[in-house]
């Protein structure tokens, strides 16, 4: 048995960003198979265009159009591409100075081995078939040894439908490990037990357990088995629907202080109308059928009233 429990976790979010006038022009151009750069105060044509001049710090406005052919100024081999890169087979990342530009841009170069790349080689943009106004409208570069040299021209009209925003999906995969104390907690939960950890210095009992006592920083050492009954210290009635909600509102989300514990944890209070839930109410864990148990807090379906008299405020006032 490994020391800790772990599970794959994927964190994903689609970042939506406005582009502003400079990057908006650049991305609109890509959608139209045109590469837009900007001439800086030093007279250098830079692609992708910086939003502000690197020397004067004024907003740039001298837009030019450069060729979709260019020259490799540096490159590196990518033997093991990662998810999301322009090509899913080994390729080169390259710095390419497009004809008419004075500064290189980073993008992928589709070649099948490092033998086929060299600094100084001529390349051309391979345009994506479907273009949306994003850097990925350039699918990659491809070798173009015979491509004639192009130059910069004044930027003409880019059409009536400028790009004003981009959506960049980001997805990261992790193998997320629990701490040894959390692992012990989840292993116990899988057997129908609730365990916490006691701080050897201040005696406080934490559930779920933590590696160190948050009050004094002392590593927790003693495992403590806890009761399945406890007291509602504070609660809220959830009335607002949200994505992924599993229960129809209104319902109660509450802090439950298990008997013998010094920190309350969040769970659902069901089997009682939401408006009847109150501070001090005595509740007990309701477990799912044993065959559904795993190493998860969801083994406890919810907490339900025990019917005992409410706990005295003094018994939980330090746990609010």
């Amino acid at each position, binding site marked *: 048995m490994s020391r800790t429990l772990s599970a794959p976790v994927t964190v994903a979010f689609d970042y939506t960003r406005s582009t502003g006038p400079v990057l908006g022009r650049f991305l609109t151009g890509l959608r139209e198979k045109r590469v837009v750069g900007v001439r800086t105060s030093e007279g250098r044509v830079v692609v992708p265009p910086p939003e502000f001049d690197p020397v004067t710090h004024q907003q740039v406005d001298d837009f030019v159009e450069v060729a979709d052919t260019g020259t490799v100024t540096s490159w590196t081999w990518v033997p093991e591409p*990662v998810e999301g890169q322009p090509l899913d087979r080994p390729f080169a990342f390259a710095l390419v100075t497009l004809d008419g530009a004075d500064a290189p841009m980073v993008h992928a170069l589709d070649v099948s081995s490092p033998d086929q790349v060299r600094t100084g080689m001529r390349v051309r943009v391979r345009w994506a078939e479907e273009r949306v106004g994003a850097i990925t409208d350039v699918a990659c570069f491809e070798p173009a040894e015979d491509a004639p040299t192009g130059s910069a021209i004044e930027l003409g009209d880019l059409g009536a439908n400028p790009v004003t925003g981009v959506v960049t999906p980001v997805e990261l995969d992790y193998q997320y490990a629990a701490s040894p104390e959390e692992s012990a907690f989840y292993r116990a939960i899988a057997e129908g037990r609730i365990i916490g950890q006691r701080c050897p210095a201040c005696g406080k009992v934490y559930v779920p357990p933590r590696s160190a006592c948050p009050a004094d*920083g002392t590593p927790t050492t003693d495992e403590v088995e806890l009761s399945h009954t406890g007291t509602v210290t504070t609660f809220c009635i959830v009335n607002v629907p949200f994505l992924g909600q599993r229960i129809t509102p209104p319902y109660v989300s509450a802090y439950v202080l298990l008997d013998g514990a010094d920190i309350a944890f969040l769970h659902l209070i069901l089997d009682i109308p939401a408006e009847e839930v109150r501070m001090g109410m005595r509740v007990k864990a309701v477990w799912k059928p044993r065959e559904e148990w795993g190493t998860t807090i969801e083994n406890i379906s919810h907490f339900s009233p025990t019917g005992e008299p409410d706990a005295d405020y003094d018994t939980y006032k330090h746990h609010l």
Partner: protein
Amino acid sequence: MREVAVVGFAQRQMEEFDGSPTCVELLVPLFAECYEQTGWSRRDIGFWCSGSSDYLAGRSFSFVQAVDAIGVIPPVNESHVEMDAAWALYEAWLKIQTGEVDTALVYGFGKSSAGVLRRTLSLQLDPYTMTPLWPDTVSLAGLQARAGIDAGLWDERAMAEVANRSLTDAEKNEYAVRKGGSSVEELLARPMYADPLRKHDCAPVTDGAAAMVLAAGDRAREVCDRPAWITGFSHYVDPISMGTRDLTRSPSAARAAAAAGTEGVEVAELHAPFSHQELVLKRELGLADDVVVNPSGGALAGNPMFTGGLIRFGEAAKKVWQGDASRVLGHATSGPALQQNIVCTMEGRN
């Protein structure tokens, strides 16, 4: 300026940490080592500052969870940077300079192995023109290495010499996760990985944590026989665009070094996660040939994210504590291809 010195340091490095990315489990013993070195308890620490990132941990507010390792009753004066803890040290040094506190404990932590590190780091790039291509860290360093090779500034042999010296020196470093030199010829005979980089040119993916104690004036003298007094501390950044910088140079490193002052430095611990970057840094920092560079083995022997830089400072400070050197330099970098650089110089006084 107040006199401020490094008086405590502890570190852990490993290939794969079998534990929670909150790293509380790693930090508790590191803090204990710092308390032992200084004779202090957490109540003697005036300010806490950490460096870490939720992108590495794969969870939100990981730095808040890590505060458990301190113990916060009564409440503590605490801050955080999403950068290498070397920058957290800078914040702590400034905090002491303000006169508000006399002591600080700085820490960093990161479990790089929880995700695909070189991919995760793409998220620090320009979100419009770079991140959607997921240019990984190794590739960006490869573009930089090739630019220097093509310009005749270094070659594969010079890179292998850096790697061989680092891995040989790392044999004496109990914390190094990659160690064992061979010969330049043997290294050059190994296969290319991300041409022009071989695997030994790239820092290993490393998990770890580190902690460092700062103290002002007499507070430092009380707890350390030979404190490493900070004589200069400065950081600068270059533009993030890979196209508008000369990748063979690092103007921000040069400026930071000039501001910190490198006169008389005997030992320099440089945070160069790729072999050629040490060559860039030596030039930009203007280090003379007789300066001992990375006696710990440097980042090529172990580079835990968010402490790879602070560990350089700690290794440099140890040289002062031990009396091996009088003037030392620590450097840390962040961002793609040496974009951001911080330099701290320290000295021992008799």
